């Protein structure tokens, strides 16, 4: 049996909407946040969990962490049913939400860590060893005596990560951990997560909209849309499915006319600059280059693939999300 086993998971919410007419009564509607979701994750896997806003990602994480009770379906994490054995389960998981803090706002972060030591009933020595390891890796040494509210966003994120890993959780949930971080902080955070996963075999479930995070960290991704699991597999094979189009940008010395391009080539023009999007399956790149050369005297030419965000946007469009 895998570490996380999810079968036929459903969750619906009741939403009260204002009626078109009248202010007193409200209409009740049911929203299906999760619809028969099933997957399994092995111990030590690092999985990306993506999907547009409102797809049900956070709901899944909340159910897996024992906060929410599902409407139906079964979930086992390390043999536990999260919402039934909540306290026992909480002892084995760590949670980081990029947009809210889990530490105590007004006290130095060391005080929070001391409190966490008692909450998770950690042995003094084990706690100290782990704290030293994490403060070194996350460069928190200087900040331990600073109140959380006075830390910068990047520092706070590192402090949160340390707090969520002190009790050596088997499973770590990360919800948008790099949101709002600068490039340097992002890169070092990714390095840290990769090491944590490798050295401690911590299973990590990463929920994010930042596809760079997913590409850098996860080999496996799950795509959720409208509460349904739409894809579960290798990131490369997901991208290969949608990574068909190539882009050539070409600037001419003076304005020219590009006519007679075959179907499947989309051209946009800005002055003497042209952007040609095409599918190499349908239009041969060699032929296209020759054609562009023939159309006038070229000042500059660049060729590129689509970036990952564009691919995902295209995927969401094709999946009708």
């Amino acid at each position, binding site marked *: 049996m895998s570490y996380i086993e999810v079968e036929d998971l459903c969750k619906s*919410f009741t939403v009260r909407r204002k009626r078109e007419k009248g202010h007193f009564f409200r209409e009740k509607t049911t929203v299906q946040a999760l619809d028969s979701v099933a997957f399994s994750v092995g111990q030590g896997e690092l999985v990306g969990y993506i999907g547009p806003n409102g797809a049900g990602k*956070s*709901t899944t994480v*909340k159910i897996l*962490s*024992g*906060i*929410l*009770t599902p409407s139906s379906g079964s979930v086992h994490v390390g043999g536990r049913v999260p919402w039934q054995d*909540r*306290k*026992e389960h*909480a*002892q084995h*998981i760590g*949670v980081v*939400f990029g947009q*809210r803090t*889990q530490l*105590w706002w*007004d*006290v130095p972060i060391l*005080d929070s860590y*001391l*409190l966490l030591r*008692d*909450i*998770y*009933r950690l042995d003094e020595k084990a706690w100290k060893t782990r704290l030293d390891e994490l403060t070194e890796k996350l460069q928190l040494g200087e900040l331990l005596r600073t109140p959380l509210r006075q830390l910068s966003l990047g520092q706070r994120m590192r402090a949160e990560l340390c707090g969520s890993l002190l009790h050596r959780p088997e499973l770590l949930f990360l919800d948008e951990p790099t949101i709002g971080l600068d490039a340097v902080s992002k890169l070092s955070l990714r390095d840290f997560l990769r090491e944590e996963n490798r050295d401690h075999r911590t299973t990590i479930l990463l929920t994010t909209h930042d596809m760079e995070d997913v590409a850098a960290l996860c080999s496996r991704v799950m795509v959720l849309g409208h509460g349904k699991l739409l894809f579960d597999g290798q990131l490369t094979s997901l991208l290969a499915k949608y990574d068909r189009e190539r882009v050539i940008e070409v600037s001419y010395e003076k304005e020219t006319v590009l006519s007679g391009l075959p179907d499947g080539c989309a051209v946009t023009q800005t002055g003497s600059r042209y952007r040609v999007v095409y599918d190499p399956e349908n239009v041969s790149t060699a032929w296209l280059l020759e054609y562009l050369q023939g159309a006038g005297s070229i000042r500059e030419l660049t060729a590129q693939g689509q970036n990952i965000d564009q691919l995902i946007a295209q995927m969401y469009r094709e999946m009708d999300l």
Partner: protein
Amino acid sequence: MRTKAYASIFRMNWKLELQYRGAVLGGIICQIVFGLILVSLYRALYAGRPQVMPIETVSTYVWLQQAFFRMILSSDSDLVGKIRTGDIAYDLVRPLSLYGYYYVRIIAQKSMGSLLRAVPMLVFALCLPRGWGIMAPVSPAAFVCFLLGLMIGLCCVSALENITMGITMRTLDPKGIQAMLNLLMMILSGNVLPLTLYPDAWQKVITALPYAQLLDAPIRLYTGTRPVTEAPGVLLLQAAWTVVLTGAGIALWKSNQRRLVIQGG
């Protein structure tokens, strides 16, 4: 049981409560003014028509009520905010009972908050002339019973506040329910009019209610209105209400937890 965890949470919240020194000073001034006004009022009443209860006892009652006002006042705006946004759910990722976590936190806030205010206020009241200020407890034994009663009252009022919070979780709007419960609290706890001044028949009913267990019961022991020989009965009634209210609160929070919806999540 995670006694050590809850003890740490208590310590942390005690320390946090120490940070609001400005609020403490404001509270002390406000409560001293209230105390002076109320005592003048009762002195005026007594000048016209003396009551059975001596004026010294009434002024002592008023000052003790004012000194421990922070204890009965519901004030955890942080928790109310968390309930409104649904962020309270995130506290469930800790291996703790949600009720226990907030119960300990409220006790810490109330106890440190009232200690900080009560000590200077009682010193002030001790300096006032007889019949204006506070008199010494009737006996050392009565004082010990008073302290015990105060501690049970603290647990009782915290349990009561957790029930208010439990109801807030259902309505998501604290204003209506809190306004109503605060009114009941102010009147039935003896903060506005000492319960000792109500007609005897009324007192029989009012003193049996939970609100009388918070401050009225220990104050009666302090002033000797209830002699030390009756202390076990007084303390037992306090403890009984505390157990009942805590049990009801736990049941309410448990059922809330099952139907929990996270706002905006």
